[in-house]
């Protein structure tokens, strides 16, 4: 089956990610019981690989939900002000309560992400949308305004360097004990599947949902919370992972359509695979140094975004 073979490729990528890096981890040294190799594997390689899978799956599924929320193909958490709002939240925690544990930091970031995304949706309702492209433009501008505020504050309080930690997704610092938040993100991603039908109906609009007896506002709120929380977890633990939420949902939608009950497993898997592959590329291009995965994704993602925009326009939808 197609799904099974795709799963196999994902497993192969994950395996590659485990054995790839500065410190040599080989099957031989593992079976020889070499303590240092096991330490690298358990404390660094496995956490990093899991973090990549969770973040990739989470951001891709969030992108899908986001697109159903905004009823627009071009949005994802990083083009809707979600990521930037989470960043602002993290910065404010650094300023006012630097001692907060990571879970509390995530909750504050979630709160800001919900507020920012709700603001984005509210703006969409207020302005007349003449073109589908207006939607991501509004989101990118809103994100720009929010991150300008963040940058200004960071500049005034000498925190510009720490900002780098969440503006560019980077998995090189992932170690055991520093990525566990992403398990929560994965849990939410799986939970989203149980509301898959409702999210599909939500994508058909408020009247359509009401006719089928679905409480539109409640589903929108559920979607918002899932997207914001997943984004916050990812941004707090590894930084912004851009474009996954844009590329993967669109590719899957073209091939399989948007009945999320059928397509979400594919979205999650391809999201994980894409981030894994990009991270491996980032690790190998200038080895032994690394290019952050956010940079690799940014390069691939912006090219894909252009393709999507041009393709849409030529079809005159």
């Amino acid at each position, binding site marked *: 089956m197609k799904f099974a073979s795709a799963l196999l490729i994902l497993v192969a990528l994950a395996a590659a990610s485990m054995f790839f890096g500065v410190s040599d981890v080989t099957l031989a040294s593992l079976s020889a019981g070499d303590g240092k190799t096991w330490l690298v594997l358990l404390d660094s390689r496995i956490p990093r690989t899991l973090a990549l899978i969770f973040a990739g799956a989470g951001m891709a599924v969030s992108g899908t939900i986001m697109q159903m929320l905004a009823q627009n193909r071009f949005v994802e958490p990083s083009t809707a002000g979600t990521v930037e709002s989470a960043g602002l939240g993290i910065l404010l925690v650094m300023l006012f309560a630097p001692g907060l544990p990571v879970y509390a930091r995530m909750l504050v970031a979630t709160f800001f992400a919900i507020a920012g995304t709700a603001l984005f949706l509210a703006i969409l309702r207020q302005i007349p949308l003449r073109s589908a492209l207006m939607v991501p433009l509004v989101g990118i501008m809103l994100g720009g305004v929010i991150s300008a505020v963040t940058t200004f504050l960071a500049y005034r309080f000498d925190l510009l360097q720490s900002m780098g930690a969440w503006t560019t997704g980077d998995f090189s610092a992932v170690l055991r004990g520093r990525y566990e938040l992403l398990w929560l993100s994965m849990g939410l991603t799986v939970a989203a599947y149980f509301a898959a*039908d409702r999210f599909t109906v939500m994508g058909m609009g408020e009247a359509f949902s009401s006719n089928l007896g679905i409480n539109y506002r409640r589903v929108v709120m559920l979607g918002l919370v899932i997207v914001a929380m997943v984004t916050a977890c990812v941004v707090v633990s590894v930084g912004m992972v851009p474009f996954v939420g844009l590329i993967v949902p669109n590719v899957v939608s073209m091939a399989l359509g948007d009945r999320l009950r059928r397509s979400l497993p594919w979205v999650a898997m391809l999201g994980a695979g894409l981030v894994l592959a990009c991270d491996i590329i980032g690790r190998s291009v200038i080895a032994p140094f690394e290019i952050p995965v956010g940079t690799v994704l940014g390069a691939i993602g912006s090219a894909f975004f252009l393709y999507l925009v041009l393709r849409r326009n030529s079809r005159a939808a």
Partner: protein
Amino acid sequence: MIRIEQATKRYGQTCVVDGVTLTLPAGGVTSIIGPNGAGKSTLLAMICRLLGMDGGAISVGGLDVTKTPGDVLARRLSILRQDNSLTARLTVRDLVAFGRYPHSKGRLTGDDARLIEEALAYLDLKPLADRFLDELSGGQRQRAFVAMVLCQDTEYMMFDEPLNNLDIKHAVTMMRLLRRAADELGKTVVVVLHDINFASCHSDRIVAMQDGRVLCQGTPQEIVRPDILEAIYGTSFVVQEIGGKRIATYFE
């Protein structure tokens, strides 16, 4: 029975639906006609709780539409609107299957599967069942949405201009289908129509609206008359009886 009392909807200063009081008995086909901006679609949307009211009360089959939970209403009444979004890319069968959502909450039973296939067959959609909606023509898409409403299988079915985009054959088929739903399955069908001759030939009752009010109502025999139509639409009509049906022409 649909009971509407003093239903009112305002947008700013303009009253789109202005204190409409109307009772539609259960069963049969009722057409709502009237010029653009008469408030037909707004009234229909309020009956189906898609729009809130600024005043008045509406109950469908004894259920107050503003107070009854949405999922209970979804098993009693269904509506097809004029503008249907296509953001979610669904196949025709996926869409029709969502008509069963109020009953099965996504876990389709054998009965559901049978109803889905029946609805597809009714609307001539079998060959298109696995195509995506965005790959279809406007008329084919319209039929898919109607099939979904049919699949929802509610006692009350409302259609807002279901003949939009349909060619002559499919328009006639659609009206016959609504007629059959009322006659054979005992459904109560309410339909907003622009074509008064379809209203005249296929409905039991016609409700004429103008400026947010009900101007008059009655059987096609009572409503399809030159003087009344002129009062509704503000243009002159010639009405002829052809094969027992009253046909209005207004082309000169």
